[in-house]
């Protein structure tokens, strides 16, 4: 019983599952990271993913085109980001409160809209929606093992890894990225160097909205192929947590997101085996976030105490 579960851990399918499951968490983590780079804590990732997942399906249904659905999702991600900047920067509200409000009502609003359109309070299963496809990479797909792992993934997964590389170059190799990081590390210093801090913060929040939205539409148009209530289920928060663990280190960010995906994959394998209580097994990924965050904080505490970490 346990051995059958363990044996599935070492199959090709398991690795493929990790790649699939890491995509939304990576998008969420990138969103949290890019906002944090200019000094903004975007904790609305979860709600943006929910909004985008739903509007993505609706856009795809209305225009009978999955790409239009993705665009719909992106637009809602950008609008939400702009909403946050409008309230916090123009009207002077506390950005965190706005984001908490968004998170609190995201699920209910999604269900409300869903019910208005489909008459169903749970999923968009009644709508026939075109979805995004997987992609077989020529040549690579014929390589044994590597082909099985790399080829045949969802298109948004490939986009995700492309963004990971491009974003790294932008943040660490270009003037724009250096200025963004400067805003996050010392806004006053950036300002006296003639940088328009607020403008870069708005830009980074918009990017954050875009990445989170991609995570959302990935879930509804690629991975699960429908919108169902509560489908984001904390993956946005895992991205935020990954960003917290990485503490500004880009590749730790990617690694943390993937580790969370591993725990998600493990939990799903265990829950398919009826010998384990599903609720308990379902808690594994969330519990892993808790444990990893705790360990990282303890390690950091002692590193700071021993003076090994320099000021930022």
């Amino acid at each position, binding site marked *: 019983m346990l051995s059958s579960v363990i044996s599935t851990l070492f199959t090709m399918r398991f690795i493929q599952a990790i790649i699939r499951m890491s995509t939304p968490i990576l998008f969420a983590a990138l969103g949290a990271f890019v906002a944090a780079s200019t000094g903004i804590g975007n904790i609305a990732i979860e709600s943006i993913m929910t909004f985008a997942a739903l509007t993505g399906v609706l856009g795809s249904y209305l225009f009978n085109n999955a790409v239009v659905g993705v665009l719909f999702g992106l637009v809602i991600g950008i609008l939400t980001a702009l909403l946050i900047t409008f309230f916090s920067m123009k009207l002077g509200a506390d950005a965190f409160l706005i984001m908490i409000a968004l998170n609190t009502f995201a699920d209910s609003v999604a269900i409300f809209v869903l019910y208005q359109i489909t008459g169903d309070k749970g999923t968009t299963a009644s709508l026939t929606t075109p979805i995004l496809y997987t992609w077989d990479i020529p040549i690579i797909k014929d390589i044994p093992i590597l082909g099985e792992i790399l080829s045949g993934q969802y298109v948004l997964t490939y986009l995700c890894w492309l963004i990971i590389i491009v974003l790294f170059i932008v943040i660490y190799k*270009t*003037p724009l990225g250096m200025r963004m990081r*400067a805003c996050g590390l*010392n806004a006053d210093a950036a300002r*006296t*160097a003639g940088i328009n801090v607020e403008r870069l913060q708005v830009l980074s929040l918009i990017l954050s909205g875009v990445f989170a939205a991609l995570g959302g539409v990935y879930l509804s148009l690629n991975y699960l192929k429908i919108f169902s209530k509560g489908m984001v289920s904390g993956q946005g928060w895992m991205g935020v947590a990954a960003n917290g663990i990485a503490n500004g280190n880009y590749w730790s960010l990617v690694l943390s997101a993937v580790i969370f995906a591993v725990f998600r994959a493990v939990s799903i394998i265990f829950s398919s085996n009826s010998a384990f209580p599903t609720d308990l097994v379902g808690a594994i990924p969330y519990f892993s976030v808790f444990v990893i965050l705790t360990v990282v904080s303890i390690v950091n505490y002692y590193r700071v105490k021993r003076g090994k970490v320099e000021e*930022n």
Partner: protein
Amino acid sequence: MSETILKLDKVTKVYPNGTVANRDINMEFEKGEIHSVVGENGAGKSTLMKMIFGIEKPSSGTITYKGEETHFNSSMDAIHVGIGMVHQHFMLIPSFSIVDNIILGEEPTKGVFIDTKEAAKRCQELSDKYDFELDVTAKVSTLSVAKRQKVEILKTLYRNAELIILDEPTSVLTPQETEKLFDQLRFFKEQGHTIIFISHKLEEVKQISDKISVIRNGVSKGTYLNSELTMEQLTNLIIGRDLDNDMDEYKTHEDFHNEKALEVKGLHMERNGKPVLNNVSFAVKCGEILGVAGVEGNGQQELVKCITGLEETKYTGEIYICGKTVGDMNIRGRRDIGMAYIPEDRMVDGVAGNLPISDNLISTYYTREDINGKVFMDSKAIAKVSDNLIKTFAVKTKNADTTVNSLSGGNVQKVVVAREYNTNSKFMIAEQPTHGIDIGSAEFVHHKLIEMRNAGAGILLVSADLNEVVDLSDRIIVMFNGKIAGYFPDANNVNESDLGMYMLGAKRQSEEEIGGALND
């Protein structure tokens, strides 16, 4: 011959809350001169510089740079025309390298990427040209304060600044580093740069400047050639009256019958196995000021901590405040038996910056009957007490509800002194009471200390400023290496260079002579 680079014409700044920071300031700066702008804390120097650098906009009046009237929207505009500023609080990103800090905002590029090689080359060349001795690839977080300041200066030079404003640049430097900075400033001058030097250290201003402009209370008091101005005239211009150096004439000599405000016997304390206080014994009598002189780090701080109970420190020996032994009494207990304390670091230990002045004025005696009602604080009484203190101590503020953070350093210190003064304590520790504040406020604080002394309080004055110790004290002890190295029963008859010998450990008195500190 001389060419005006910057001209201020009737520049006025009124803040939205009605505070007038600058009124009708006229000033001219010539190319290639070192021009100091001096004034007390809160006189309006910083506001003026912010307007020149484009951080603030003048309410009226014009600023003309190189013959053109400026309308800066941000410091970016000022930087573009060639004005640079080295801020008092450094504007650096510690986790960035020196290169990244310098090029930030003006990055050399190759295609869409930052050209890191070119950037490093340019920065290194710049550093070498001005003899800054920096390895520009180093992280700023690894640098000393003096080096960080060099990075700030390089930032302005990288942006081709012709006019460089330095806001209190020496406040963070040692004397040797200050010398080095001055050499560099002179070199900049030779290269044709114009330097605006902001400071309230008058010796330095006299040493470095070609011209000196004085601001008092937001109003310009004129520009003078350094060579035509004596120190006395300069002080007079800054505070608007002559400064009393001799505090003796304010002292009265009532007899307090040798009553002792503080007695310290055989105080001994070790840190890491080394004694930081070694058999220290002395007494402070009522109605006198006992000065503790010494180079910083010779046990003065530990001494104060033992007496105040500010830090839980293990020591042996006895401490009596107003005749009562303190044992392991907490700070409240010590204050209750008659101790008042002006701490060294006013922003950390002296005030709660985010609270209003009124709260800070009562924070050490808020339990006192006259302001503490039965259940709630008596806000009327508090208002009365604080308004009175603000008036008598001439704290520059609109009202008592302003937060302490918005005050200038000198005024914050006045709040601290006013509060401790109002405790009517018999024993006061004044630790660096005028450190880093302007001369006008410093003089005021000195007068208040003398006033307390005359009223019968015993004051322990711990100061790194030798002039302050000599001017105020009745008796003086010198600390060296955790011990009392010298005792001077008559502060009026000490020779400063002689004191210096004891401070540096070149001389030491016999145990008998030192014993006078306790027994006289």
